[in-house]
């Protein structure tokens, strides 16, 4: 009986310890970004002296460019990709969820199959294709696939939106149809406003997956002036000696800040998105 009463306490102590171990590397990272490189071996979180120059020097570590350029590049690419993804994926999902057309089930099973398609099998022929089109070292190899509901996560987003739209009452469509609404009208005026929670989830994951699409950036972006944040980090990592670890950790930390902020402010969309669709973070 006494053991039963203590069970929740033990569980909480275990969970607090475990959570601490899980986030400790990140806490240490925050401290380390302000540490002098002589202090980087110490497991303590708080630096003895705050070395803010890790951030300022790290920001300018690549000659001729600052991280401002790389963030502008990455955010520009992200905005373009998110806009075209939202347009294409909602259109496709509406078609699958609400309209009847010949071979619909066939195409839907193909869609489900491509959900599991390992992307790396396609990178060589896609690269050859984009190379022939002269798209290497532009952002088109990211924007065009997303316009066609492909690219990082495209099929997942279509699937997630189909599931969501199927859950909306069909009577709304019927009512709008009687009022003389076209299919596009139903899509734009009836379904889209109700799909906004799922649209936010798609935006979040589209942003995250493109931010971390390191292999794609590595393949298609060759010149420093078009570099994304991830490529810039790799460039510092390759070119600098161990003495500048503080700068590297500081810049790495800034690079995960966008994802963290999105998570902090839009947490409920995350958990719902993951739990309902089985999407990976």
């Amino acid at each position, binding site marked *: 009986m006494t053991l039963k009463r203590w069970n929740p306490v033990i569980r909480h102590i275990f969970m607090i310890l475990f959570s601490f171990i899980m986030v400790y590397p990140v806490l240490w990272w925050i401290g380390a970004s302000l540490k002098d490189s002589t202090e980087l071996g110490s497991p303590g979180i708080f630096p003895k002296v705050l070395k803010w120059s890790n951030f300022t020097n790290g920001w300018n570590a690549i000659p001729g460019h600052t991280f401002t350029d790389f963030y502008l590049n990455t955010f520009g690419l992200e905005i373009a990709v998110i806009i075209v993804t939202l347009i294409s994926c909602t*259109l496709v999902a509406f078609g699958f969820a609400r309209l*009847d057309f010949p071979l619909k089930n066939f195409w839907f099973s193909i869609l489900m199959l491509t959900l599991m398609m*390992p992307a790396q099998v396609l990178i060589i*022929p896609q*690269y050859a294709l984009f190379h022939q089109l002269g798209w290497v070292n532009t952002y088109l190899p990211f924007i065009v696939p997303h316009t066609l509901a*492909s690219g990082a996560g495209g099929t997942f987003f279509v699937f997630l939106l189909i599931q969501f739209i199927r859950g909306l009452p069909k009577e709304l469509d019927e009512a709008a149809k009687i009022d003389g609404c076209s299919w596009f009208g139903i*899509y734009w005026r009836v379904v889209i406003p109700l799909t906004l929670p799922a649209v936010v989830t798609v935006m979040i994951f589209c942003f995250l997956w493109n931010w971390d699409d390191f292999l794609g950036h590595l393949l298609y972006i060759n010149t420093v002036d078009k570099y994304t944040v991830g490529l810039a980090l*790799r460039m510092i990592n390759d070119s600098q000696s161990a003495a500048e670890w503080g700068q*590297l950790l500081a810049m790495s930390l800034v690079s995960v800040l966008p994802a963290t902020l999105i998570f902090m402010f839009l947490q409920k969309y995350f958990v719902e998105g993951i739990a309902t669709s089985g999407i990976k973070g």
Partner: protein
Amino acid sequence: MNSSTAAITPAPAKTKRKSSFLSRWDAPIAGYLFISPWLIGFLALTAYPLFLSLYYSFTNYTLMQPIEWIGTRNYEKIFTADPKFISSVKVTFTYVLASVPLKLIAALLVAMILAKAVRGISAYRTAIYFPSLIGGSIGVSLLWRNIFGVDGIFNNIIGVFGFEGKGWITSPDSALSTLVLLTVWQFGSTMVIFLAGLKQIPSDLYEASSVDGANKVVQFFRITLPMLSPILYFNLIMAVIGAFQMFTSAFVITNGGPMNTTYVYAMYLYERAFSRYELGYASALAWIMLLMIIAATILISISSKYWVFYESDTGRGKRK
């Protein structure tokens, strides 16, 4: 008389037929218009490239030279005279077999503990989910390289407990383990899925079984695991497919080394294709990878007949 009925009656029928004609044909055209972005994307960026890479795999294609058909020579070379292929397959299988079970077990255990907690659940969930949010980024890979380096904090922490440190990333017998650990550290998103699944299990199942005298262990194997098995099945397949394609952390943290102990298949594919531009040879490697992933998926789904449990329509499970 005749002409008047003919003039009156067919007219509404005609408009009626016209509208039904339109609504019957309107939807298919509109349907294809709506799904056209995906359809074009599928044909141009998935189906066509898939066949193209199959064709490339039988050629000596490089971006510079004209294409030449060489039959199965790429495949013959891969299977008979390519030690790097053998070693990268071994490394990849080791990585998959170590990281996937560890990640799923950690996710399931922690989800079960969290499911019982009433207070503080969202704080714990946030702390545990957070690593999987940022873990795939190059930033975290760089962090990992520092932590497990010779002068990193991991050595200093285990030093406190009297263990001797080493360069975990630079020594051949531990390098892959650090990459596995990075993957397992990101079990949070899988755990959130398990947590949602655990909450769906009706509590009367547990109540009824404890009345019948079942203890916690029996309950776990007879109720929790079977009820969760469809979710486990889905997560297993997705984790295996993901693990086969592991690239970023091996590329950034260890760059395939030391002594090729972390030289995973995706890195080998990348090197053949984009450092040496042997696109034909690399396409053969890509197809072998696809077949390995398909084989693994089929094996898992065959095995699922024995361990995945689907709820019947009446709400209680039935072994299928």
